[in-house]
């Protein structure tokens, strides 16, 4: 095993949830959390920032003239700039705060979709997508009389730029594709895919929900038009998502929700809307949660996303190797670059039975179809157990997992 780039054991102490006892096990063992793809645990600095935002600046943004409101506004807008820097965006006005990746996608399907998709056009997605980057486009195509085209994965679930190229044409108005699979962890060659799309004048929308906590992201390098992700999967609070869009394109889009905060003036019969990003932020945003997201970004950048990526690659490789030693265990998904998300099936044992039996030992994993039914149908698999890691996980935890899996296999067969 290659030496880890940092002492990540020390980092575990930053996450209070990791020293809590596992709820189901009834013993004193700490939780072994292997479900980071569902939501990440939160470091103390994020919890502290959240608490201080509620205590010291619990005020609405862009409205009050008193100190708390001005401080909240300053911090809130500061996080917008932090996010722009995190994803290497050219400016912060093209960073929109939403409720989560799902809302970001729905915003685009509504606002962008109504602008650019006409009857007879095509909207391209892939079999690899999470339902939240599949259903909004399926619904858009249905409502606009357009055709939803689905790029195919191979039998291992691998999505190649070639599979996208086969489906692209001048009719393809939009392409929605994930940056990393929430089932197999496969990292997609988004840069090549965006170059291909550009040749056909296709607008590209990338789901970065599984990427931003695990690797450096540069929307400039990727060359995409839109990039969406969630705060809660990158050490931040629940209820906050990000939609980044190329400013020139974002400016052309109409509001998708109307209400306070997104208007310039309102008359009885018509109104004038704000410019970006506020046009897309109707109503009171999750002020304290956005402010706390700033602490998560600082924490990730304090370690360095390249360092995190290197550490997690060691963990991912080791975990895959050790899982392969478990009798009757089969890994699902392609070999190759990925984020630390690993799916498998255990011969003769249903994934939910595996997950319940692991939970009894204080090990949190996810089982089922992981909101990605089209992918499972394409791979001919009925469901999987998913282990999703973060830099705070240890090889000892993986050893505990693997020995539990050996016992579980023997119990059910």
């Amino acid at each position, binding site marked *: 095993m290659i030496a880890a780039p940092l002492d990540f054991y020390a980092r575990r102490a930053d996450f209070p949830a990791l020293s809590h006892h596992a709820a189901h096990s009834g013993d004193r063992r700490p939780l072994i959390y292997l479900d980071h793809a569902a939501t990440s645990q939160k470091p103390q600095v994020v919890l502290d920032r959240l608490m201080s935002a509620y205590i010291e600046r619990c005020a609405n943004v862009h409205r009050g003239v008193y100190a708390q409101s001005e401080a909240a506004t300053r911090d809130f807008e500061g996080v917008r700039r932090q996010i722009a820097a995190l994803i290497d965006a050219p400016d912060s006005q093209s960073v929109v705060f939403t409720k989560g990746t799902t809302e970001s996608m729905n915003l685009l399907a509504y606002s962008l979709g109504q602008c650019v998709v006409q009857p007879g056009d095509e909207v391209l997605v892939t079999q690899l997508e999470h339902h939240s980057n599949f259903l909004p486009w399926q619904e858009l195509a249905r409502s606009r009389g357009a055709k939803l085209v689905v790029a195919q994965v191979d039998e291992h679930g691998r999505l190649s730029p070639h599979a996208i190229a086969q489906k692209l044409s001048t009719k393809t108005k939009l392409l929605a594709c994930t940056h990393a699979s929430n089932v197999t962890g496969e990292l997609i060659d988004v840069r090549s895919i965006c170059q291909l799309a550009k040749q056909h004048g296709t607008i590209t929308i990338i789901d970065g929900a599984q990427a931003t906590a695990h690797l450096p992201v540069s929307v400039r390098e990727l060359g995409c038009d839109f990039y969406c992700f969630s705060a809660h999967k990158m050490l931040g609070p629940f209820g906050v998502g990000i939609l980044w869009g190329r400013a020139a394109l974002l400016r052309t889009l109409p509001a998708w929700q109307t209400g306070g905060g997104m208007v310039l003036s309102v008359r009885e019969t018509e109104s004038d809307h704000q410019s970006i990003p506020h046009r897309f932020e109707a109503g009171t945003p999750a002020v304290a949660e956005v402010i706390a997201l700033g602490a998560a970004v600082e924490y990730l950048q304090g370690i360095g996303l390249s360092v995190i990526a290197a550490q997690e690659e060691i963990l991912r490789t080791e975990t895959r190797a050790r899982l392969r030693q478990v009798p009757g265990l089969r890994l699902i998904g392609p070999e190759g670059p990925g984020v630390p998300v690993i799916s498998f099936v255990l011969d003769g044992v249903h994934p939910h039975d595996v997950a319940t*039996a692991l939970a009894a030992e204080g090990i949190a994993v996810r089982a089922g179809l992981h909101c990605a039914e089209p992918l499972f149908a394409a791979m001919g698999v009925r469901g999987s157990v998913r282990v999703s890691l973060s830099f705070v996980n240890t090889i000892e935890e993986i050893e505990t997992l693997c020995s539990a899996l050996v016992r579980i296999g023997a119990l059910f067969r």
Partner: protein
Amino acid sequence: MNEALAKLYQEVILTHHRKPHHFGPLPDATQQVRLVNPLCGDEVTIAVRIDQDTIAACHFDGYGCALCRASASLLTLSVRGQSLEAVRALGHTLLTFLQADPASQTPEGIGDLIALCGVREHPSRRRCATLPWEALLTIVDDATE
């Protein structure tokens, strides 16, 4: 295996999971219903042959976890030869029991189905055990309308 897990996966459950009774299609079925659990994608089909308001034969088919398979297998044994009214009463008694607080009393007349009691302490797994019974009750309700 710890206590909670041992209660959930009792030997009766594991035995029925490994070798389920009446698993597979029922060729001369008069009614069948297929239900899907959207959480996990599991599906179960309950097929029956009803003869003069009595369940003459009952099979199950589909894909499910140990709890779902065992529940369906136990179901096929406990409803065979029973009247539709008796099956309806049994089904409702069992569903109420499985959805009740883990400390609640065990109702009379559920026999081997008591082995399913462990799901009461695992709310996320309750539906695994109830799915076959929901399918059966749909059949019974339709047949007696």
